[in-house]
């Protein structure tokens, strides 16, 4: 610590003590329970659970749909952020406020609403059904739900960066003779890339653990449309604590890795951005 002088403001002991106690009791101790429980499994038990074809299929599905949804969000989230920051049009403020709906709306509500819409008889599903394309109860439906859940993460990380982006970068590029397309591609996009990657990673991480919005639209067919969090649920209902814990441990490790990556990304972006 650089600052060794006496603390002027009061309350450090009280607030830090309470915060740490609360954090430990509520989050750290319960979370370590997962790993302690997982540690009581033998290697064989653990791998048998995790490498079970049904579990593997659920991991594959969860991973791929989350990745797909995060990719869709990276593209459309960037588009939405760009349109909201750079263009003026009627209803812009309204749309801007709406972006946070997935944060505020209970996931179960999103789940049943999306299912009703994208089912074959729903407003949107009915448009695709005649073409032989099923949306709900397929991996596509799961991806749609995860796009809904992940959208604000991308928009809300890219938006402030875009807002703060100095016009002089684009002007410098124009003065050097670059076309608008070249400027967007070579100058603006690289400036936004760290934020875009962070948003992508956040949306991806959120998708891996998402449950409420997905269980309704997924159809929950083993091997086909069963996501990993649902499998934890199923194992718990069968009182297979060990199995549930093994799957949870894998998901947790994956989430923590992502959290680590996200922190790294943000720190790097901050470092580069700090220079004038």
């Amino acid at each position, binding site marked *: 610590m650089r600052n060794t002088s006496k603390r002027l403001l009061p309350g450090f002991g009280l607030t830090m003590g309470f915060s740490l106690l609360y954090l430990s009791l509520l989050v750290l101790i319960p*979370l370590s329970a997962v790993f302690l429980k997982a540690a009581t499994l033998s290697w064989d038990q653990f791998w048998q659970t995790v490498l079970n074809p049904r579990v593997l299929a659920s991991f594959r599905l969860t991973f791929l749909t989350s990745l797909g949804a995060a990719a869709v969000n990276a593209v459309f989230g960037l588009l939405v952020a760009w*349109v909201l920051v750079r263009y003026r049009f009627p209803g812009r403020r309204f749309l801007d406020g709406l972006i946070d709906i997935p944060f505020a709306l209970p996931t*179960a509500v999103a789940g049943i609403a999306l299912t009703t819409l994208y089912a074959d008889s729903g407003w949107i599903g009915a448009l695709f059904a005649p073409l032989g394309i099923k949306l709900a109860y397929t991996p596509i439906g799961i991806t749609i739900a995860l796009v*809904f859940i992940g959208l604000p993460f991308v928009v809300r990380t890219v938006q402030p960066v875009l807002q703060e982006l100095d016009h002089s970068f684009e002007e410098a590029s124009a003065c050097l003779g670059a076309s608008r397309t070249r400027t967007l591609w070579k100058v603006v996009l690289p400036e936004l890339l760290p934020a875009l990657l962070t948003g992508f990673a*956040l949306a991806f991480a959120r998708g891996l653990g998402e449950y*409420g919005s997905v269980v309704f639209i997924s159809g929950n067919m083993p091997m086909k449309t069963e996501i990993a*969090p649902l499998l934890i649920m199923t194992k718990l209902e069968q009182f297979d604590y060990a199995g549930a814990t093994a799957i949870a441990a894998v998901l947790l490790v994956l989430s923590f890795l992502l959290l680590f990556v996200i922190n790294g990304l943000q720190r790097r972006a901050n470092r580069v951005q700090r220079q004038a």
Partner: protein
Amino acid sequence: MASIALGPAAESRETPAHLNEPAWVRVLLIGLAVLFLTLILLVPLAAVFAEAFKKGAAVYLQSLTSKDALAAIRLTLAVAAIAVPLNVLFGVSAAWAVTKFRFRGKQLFLTLTDLPFAVSPVIAGLVFILLFGSRGWLGPFLAEHDLKIVFALPGIVLSTLFVTFPFVARELIPLMEAQGKDEEEAAVSLGAGGWRVFFRVTLPGIKWGLLYGIILCNARAMGEFGAVSVVSGHIRGRTNTLPLHVEILYNEYQFAAAFAAASLLVLLALVTLAVKSFVEWRHRRHADALAARERQGALREEAAWR
């Protein structure tokens, strides 16, 4: 996480031509964005109300006033009434510790605070089953003393606390970071005590951010589904919160009733966003006033040249 911070939304001047795309590109991009947001966000909201009123207002009201629905609403309110104040307490005290002092491991502390964001809600429920479930570590002890945590109110509250606990802290930390600690230090040097400093100096500056943090935390507490679903046991009239009630009705093909209950949660979400917009509007106005004052300063400076 960036998502919950109040985004700076300062209006920029009209974009000059060389920084802009051709009109048809602009129209195309705006059209695409609006179409996407409509399909993904707007239509689902509209669908909730359309389905809720499909069988008329009478059925709608009836579904909301049924015995089970009322019990679910009561339970949801009770859970929020316990969970939100506790998380506010944590949020304020964590924000105070983090923003007013320097200490080793601050970054680690912040990362740990963010943990629940990265944990699947199902796992948030699972941890409490592992601890307090009938086959969990404390299960036998609890059974002996006839204490019920899982499949009862305490379990629901605990898992809700876990899921919603970073929201207030995450809202306050950037706000208090930006405000610095000069004013508090000045107050202390004038002889004010800690509580007095907090209520008289700190609180007035953060009250709107705190309000939004509370509202968001409340919305998530009332709407939490995955974690609560694991620990509640779905006992109708006893341990069903509103989101669980929605699920049960939906799975029983009582769509109108399910969407009626869901519509309440949609309203809750809309109110939450309205408060957010209001708080952001206040921040913007505040920032504009500051900018105007600065502009006036520049004018005075310029006048001094004459």
